[in-house]
């Protein structure tokens, strides 16, 4: 089985990289890009039967820094 973990900066935490991407899109002529937030996707290959609870534990301990980031788990 696989799990996909999406890690994003929490709302309200300034994302300088997202801002730089927004500016770059503007200079390429894409009008109306009002905000860009950049995050990461982590794909995990897991032994069958691994619970979402275990993946949550992985997120809390390592994959996300919950001081500044939030995460979503997708089991696929």
């Amino acid at each position, binding site marked *: 089985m696989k799990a996909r973990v999406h890690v994003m900066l929490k709302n309200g*935490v*300034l994302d*300088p*990289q997202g801002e*730089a991407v927004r500016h770059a899109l503007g200079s390429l002529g894409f009008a109306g890009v009002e905000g860009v937030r950049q995050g990461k996707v982590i794909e995990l290959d897991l032994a069958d039967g691994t619970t979402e609870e275990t993946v949550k534990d992985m997120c809390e*301990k*390592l*994959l996300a*820094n919950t*001081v*500044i980031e939030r995460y979503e788990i997708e089991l696929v």
Partner: protein
Amino acid sequence: MRAAVIVFPGSNCDRDLAVAFRNAGLDVTMVWHKDTDLPSGIDMVGIPGGFSFGDYLRCGAIAANSPICQSVKAHADRGGYVFGVCNGFQVLTETKLLPGALMRNAGLKFVCKNTPLKVETTSSVFTSAYAQGQEIMIPIAHHDGNYSADADTVKLLQDEDRIAFTYGQNPNGSTADIAGILSENRRVLGMMPHPERAAEEAHGGTDGARLFAHLTEALAGA
């Protein structure tokens, strides 16, 4: 007085930190990240600058979960002293020994230059040799030094006099110009600037030497 300097794959200021500790009179042992225990009788743990584990995932995140860091946490919980510089500061926030997080510099660039700092508190073994409000020049060299914490945390740090150093000219977007902070018991210091790189005449500056100068006395009294 005994110090341990932790060495991770990718640490590159470990020997500089060891030299600064030794020049201050500390007996230094280098400790590999895979070791599970600190040598006995360690008073001070130094977590050096560098790019531990290639800064993969987040700066300091993988180092913070390495075997030795459990012992460093236990050492701090027992009231031991810990000093983290640059990547070491990132490791200390990732272990939660210090609050907040260090994010990508607001200007998105790696910044490497001599920077004016203000000594915000003299109430710690690390800062007691400075004068309150003293301006010092210390080099910075980082890509992710933008200190970020919520308003309540910053207020707590201010109210408890736990901000050790602030930037004179904020180089990275840090909240409240924060360059270094102390733990609640004032025995853990994390800072992005590198005092060990301004500790001898040959470095081009000696303002960092004072941070180490009184460590043996202060630790003997602790």
